[in-house]
């Protein structure tokens, strides 16, 4: 315990170079004389750098980027040709690439950016972070929830050693997918993304300190995200192929 609580705000502002001159001298003198505040300043600085290393950019889905770029092209007379052509090409390329990848891409490891996106989704969407849209351990109830919401016959695979606890609707690259939540034996929560698009359907990748593993089953792409080791995730996904739906 320390009695230096009132120094938190000046220490924090000093880190950002936002301390008024009138406060700066007093704060520096205090830190020089107070070992506790010196340690706190070092801790706050390390935290600032750690937060800065998180992902500050996300590539939006091709359809969203194309929409935004189309907005840029509208307006009085549109953009000059030199500006408009690259934008049009980029928009076309983004939309075309996604369509091509969706239809023809062979099963592969989840792409790094997609794995990062799914890991972020997992962190933000697990029931511990926000309530699930359907809370159930009954696969039939989960399937009914998704039946009019996704553009493919929904599934709720049985995973050996994991219990279904709920789900929510999710969109990946503008395409609606199922997001099912399972409680694994180790008490970790597993997110299972189910899509009729190819999300990468073989092997595992690490993203945001989590593991992201994919496989194909029932003509769908299944991608599991959890903190569990890759071998455990592969085993759970393999069991999904055996379990089919309830």
């Amino acid at each position, binding site marked *: *315990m*320390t009695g230096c*609580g*009132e120094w*938190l*705000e000046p220490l*924090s*502002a000093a880190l*950002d170079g*936002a301390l008024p001159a009138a406060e700066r001298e007093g704060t520096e003198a205090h830190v020089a004389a107070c070992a506790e505040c010196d340690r*706190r300043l*070092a*801790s*706050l*600085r*390390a*935290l*600032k*750098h*750690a*937060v*800065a*290393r*998180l992902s*500050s*950019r*996300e*590539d*939006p*889905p091709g*359809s*969203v980027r194309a*929409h*935004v*770029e189309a*907005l*840029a*092209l*509208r*307006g*009085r007379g549109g*953009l000059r040709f030199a*500006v408009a052509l690259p*934008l049009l090409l980029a928009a076309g390329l983004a939309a075309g690439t996604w369509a091509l990848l969706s239809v023809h891409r062979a099963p592969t490891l989840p792409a790094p950016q997609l794995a990062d*996106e799914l*890991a*972020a*989704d997992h*962190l*933000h*969407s697990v029931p511990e972070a926000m309530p699930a849209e359907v809370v159930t351990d009954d696969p039939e109830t989960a399937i009914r929830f998704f039946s009019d919401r996704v553009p493919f016959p929904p599934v709720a695979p049985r995973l050996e050693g994991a219990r279904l606890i709920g789900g929510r*609707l*999710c*969109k*990946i690259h*503008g395409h609606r997918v199922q997001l099912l939540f399972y409680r694994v034996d180790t008490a970790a929560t597993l997110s299972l993304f189910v899509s009729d698009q190819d999300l990468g359907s073989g092997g595992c990748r690490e993203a*945001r*300190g*989590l593991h992201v593993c994919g496989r194909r089953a029932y003509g769908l792409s299944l991608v599991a995200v959890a*903190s569990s080791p890759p071998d455990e995730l592969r085993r759970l996904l393999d069991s999904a192929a055996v379990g089919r739906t309830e």
Partner: protein
Amino acid sequence: MKREEFAALALSSVEEVAAYARRLTRSAADADDLVQETFARAFRSWRDLRERRACRAWLFRIARNLHLNRRRYASSRPELHLVDEERAAEHASFVPPERVERLAAHDLEAALERLPAEQRDAVLLCDLWGFEYEEIASILGCPLGTVRSRIARGRGRLAVLLAAWSTRARGRES
């Protein structure tokens, strides 16, 4: 500023606005919609933007206002303000810097999730996107002193949460 210049500036911020939208909405589907609405609004009122260098903060402010307007129409749980925990943060031990270096991204994300939204927003705008306090004040629509206080409280609470995590981790290691 000409519309072409604004378009080029705005497009250079799409990825950052997309990341911000994802953090605001916590949903990929809602974030996609929010990004599109933000840029639709921005391209309708781009003449309101007086300074080129304010463009990025202006886009963030539009995204945040649109998100808040949506939430007013949606049922949402009231945010819990853990006053006692905040007071404790002013006095408790902070996580040692060397432990922060070894922190996994998901532990940091999980701790950020536990901050009150207004503190999390302020910390992320400052440390993740590198906005100045004045810009954060304009994005959040609050006075400069409030920004300074939210960032300090958010960081303090984060340091305490991670100190507890660090102690548990050390217990598991030993």
